[in-house]
């Protein structure tokens, strides 16, 4: 009996990652989301190939394809869809929308993922330190997050882009600015609050009594328990980061033209949504699909990572709230 338990604990330790993957695969919605995400990434990576396949590039102007006298609205139906331009052309410039969406995916996905990583790493680190550290550390971090939250994003972004050298890669700058100024404060406070609750729980107290170091407790006991809320939050932050990139494009501090990004397309498309709906709907749809994919994946990952889920699986008993059969979203 004792041997059995020990063996099981060992097995659990060794194959933790594999188990998580197995549980993920078991969920159809997660699988579907992963496939869609894969397609999106492929769409971004293969942008030059796709452009070559269509026979267009993202920067060439097509003056003949827009009705210049009517404000530059694309000629033809659905925003100028044709055999040459699969998703139509941009109003005013006549640039190919399909290729710009492909290339735009690169910037948007990189900025969104990068900024989310920054947010999660910084937010979790600040939150746990605040909760586990002494009162001084807690109040310093609390005030730091207050400052981050209250800084005027607009003024700051404009000033930063003016101060940072022009050669500095713009996507990296966007990742840092969005990552540090959007959502870190919220995440840090969330993590701190959760950690303070967890600290009082029996198993964490036990670990403390057993003489574990703060770092060890954070890593072994807290991080797994924090994973669920953090992943849920991060899954929502990610699309909001893309939207933020759109906002920065709107202010003219996004990626440099003529490089496209979904955010840049959305921000210039705003005024066109009645005259040329396709031009707005396409990037908006892609953004929505991305949001959906990350929400579903985040959910699935959260459940799969949950240590209690594992124990219940072994015991073979499900919670009455039906947590194993959650809907896709």
């Amino acid at each position, binding site marked *: 009996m004792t041997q059995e338990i020990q063996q099981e604990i060992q097995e659990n330790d060794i194959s933790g990652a594999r188990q998580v993957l197995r549980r993920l695969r078991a969920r159809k919605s997660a699988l579907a989301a992963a496939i869609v995400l894969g397609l999106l990434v492929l769409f971004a990576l293969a942008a030059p190939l796709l452009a070559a396949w269509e026979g267009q590039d993202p920067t060439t102007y097509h003056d003949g394809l827009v009705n210049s006298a009517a404000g530059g609205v694309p000629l033809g139906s659905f925003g100028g869809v044709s055999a040459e331009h699969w998703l139509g052309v941009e109003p005013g410039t006549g640039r190919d929308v399909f290729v710009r969406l492909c290339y735009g995916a690169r910037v948007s996905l990189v900025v969104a993922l990068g900024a989310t990583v920054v947010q999660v790493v910084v937010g979790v680190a600040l939150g746990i330190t605040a909760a586990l550290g002494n009162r001084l550390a*807690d*109040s310093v971090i*609390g*005030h730091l997050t*207050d*400052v981050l*939250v*209250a*800084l*005027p*994003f*607009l*003024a700051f972004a404009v*000033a930063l882009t003016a*101060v940072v050298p022009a050669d500095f890669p713009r996507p990296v700058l966007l990742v840092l600015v969005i990552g540090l100024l959007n*959502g870190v*404060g*919220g995440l840090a*406070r*969330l993590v*701190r*609050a959760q950690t*303070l*609750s967890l600290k009082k729980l029996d198993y964490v107290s036990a670990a403390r009594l057993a003489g574990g170091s703060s770092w060890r407790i954070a890593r072994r006991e807290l991080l797994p328990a924090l994973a*669920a*809320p953090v992943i*849920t*939050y991060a*899954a*929502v*932050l990610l*699309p*909001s980061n*893309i*939207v933020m990139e*759109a*906002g920065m494009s*709107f202010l003219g501090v996004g990626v440099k033209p003529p490089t496209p990004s979904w*955010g840049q397309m*959305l*921000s210039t498309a*705003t005024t066109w*949504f009645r005259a040329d709906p396709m031009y707005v709907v396409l990037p*908006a749809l892609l*953004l*929505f699909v*991305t*949001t*959906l994919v990350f*929400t579903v994946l985040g*959910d699935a990952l*959260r459940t799969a990572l949950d240590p*209690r889920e594992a124990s219940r699986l072994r015991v073979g008993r499900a*919670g009455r*709230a*039906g*947590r194993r059969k*959650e*809907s896709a*979203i």
Partner: protein
Amino acid sequence: MTGYLLRRIAGGLAVLLVLSVIIYAVFYVAPGDPARLACGPRCNPEQIRQVREQLGLNQPVYTQYWHFLQGIVAGHDYSTGTGTMHCQAPCLGLSYQNDQPVTGLIIQRLPATASLAVGAMVLWLLLGVGTGVLSALRRGGITERVLTWLTLAGTATPVFITGLGLLMLFCAYLQWLPFPSYVPLTDDPEQWAWNMLLPWLALALLEAAKYARLTRSSMLETLAEDHIRTFRAYGLAERSIVGGHALRGALAPVIALSAADFGSIFGNAMLTETMFGLPGLGQLMVTSTKTIDLPVVVGVVLVTGTAVVVANILADVLYAVADRRVALR
């Protein structure tokens, strides 16, 4: 409790001080000469020199900052040309652009922003927590699904597109609502609410999904916890378990997050106010950032900073009330 509050208020003041220093520093390094902008489109060097002197910009930046602090504590006298005008403490200085006292400008603009922020927050909490509870319990069927999709779409769409869409749909096409024009609450509460409805909705849709996800995941967590299982084992009514215990536990992180978001709402409020033409602080911030009107920018940042600090103190107190496991520290 009193000691705790005093400590938090002192900390809050430190946050505001740091914020004002950062803004001064940022504007010091950012491009653009406020004297030139205040002087008009085509000023000769001598005229710019005179204006710079008039605005006190010829002094070193630390002296300017010192004068600013003095004004907050003791007020200031300013020359109007024909006489003097006394700016009472807390005096935030005069606008570079047209010499209006900043304190007055902010007081004029505060009600609109406060209306927007508070109303939108109420709406997104209702929408978000409601959706979250429904989907955690898997109740509500079609309503829950519609709400979930709606909130997700809201998150994935920049507020400048949501806002425009709402305007076109409800004011131009259906004509159910007037084009929003701000009516102060004190003038006519009913008109105030009707005019604010669309701005509230636009902002709430952006934030609601985050709360829906968070409420759902926290509730699932709590429902799976041992004490809930014990309650169930004891045969407690499901309604009392959900309402009294699970929801209460789940609300803790929601409160923590709303405090942080209430502060950071300002960034999106800025875009919302510009979109809907609300005479709020966000609009003031946008125009004064463009014209490098430092006193106005600092003033607005201090006000929003105060909102962040106060919201966080409130949240911590509420959090302790909601989750008895946490003590104030």
